[in-house]
């Protein structure tokens, strides 16, 4: 049997990669992909603890996270299309109208 800590460390690694991608990439779509990596790392943690404690609730939560992720992807990509139509670029540093 595989120890739970291995899964948890893998999940931490994936979450860290997602955070690094979110802060280092400058493309809006790459940012959205990094958010998906982070959501998957959290899903993995939920499933590990669901397996550990023999409770199905953790897997139900993964189900809800999936729903929210799909809604986020739909709205986020619609925003990406709107931004690209207005500005002809996807670099987040160029969208600085609200920046002081």
């Amino acid at each position, binding site marked *: 049997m*595989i120890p739970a800590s291995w899964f948890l460390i893998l999940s931490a690694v994936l979450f860290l990669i997602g955070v690094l991608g979110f802060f280092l990439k400058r493309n809006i779509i790459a940012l959205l992909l990094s958010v998906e*990596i982070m959501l998957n790392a959290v899903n993995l943690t939920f499933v590990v603890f669901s*397996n550990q404690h023999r409770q199905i609730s953790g897997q139900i939560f993964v189900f809800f996270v999936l729903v929210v992720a799909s809604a986020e992807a739909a709205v986020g990509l619609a925003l990406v299309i709107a931004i690209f139509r207005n500005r002809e670029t996807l670099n987040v540093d160029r969208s600085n109208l609200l920046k002081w």
Partner: protein
Amino acid sequence: MIQILFFFFAALAAGAAINVLVQKHVLYSALSLILMLIAISGLFILLRADFLAMIQIIVYAGAIMVLFVFVIMLLNLPADEDGADRLRWLKFIGIPLGLFFLFLVSATLWNVEAGSGTPSTFTGSPRAIGQSLFTDYVLPFEATSLLILIALVGAVVFAKKDL
């Protein structure tokens, strides 16, 4: 044997996730993310969450990522332009700090002991998930339908021609 499978899927997931960041063109990042989703689905099967593993492939890799790839191809993007960028030096601080954070988290997680439950035949079968979803969690389940409706309307409004 099962450890070998774990290491295979773990290496695949971590490698694909790093490849998402390394790739210059965002389309290759999206394709690499699909590989990571499939690896995580394999890990779900190792954890006896069969239904979630299938849902992961069908919904995530099959629907959400297709949406991403569709938008990327629709916009006809140039290659990533984050070369000459004032935030470039953040890489040299962010990656060591991130690795230090990872070290702290791993040192804590290394001592997580096994759960108290008996090693019974616990599975996340569609039957078990459906039973829980439609009895204990029926209100959140209905609330998600409202969320999806809002997201649908919002996406249509945002993508309209004259925003």
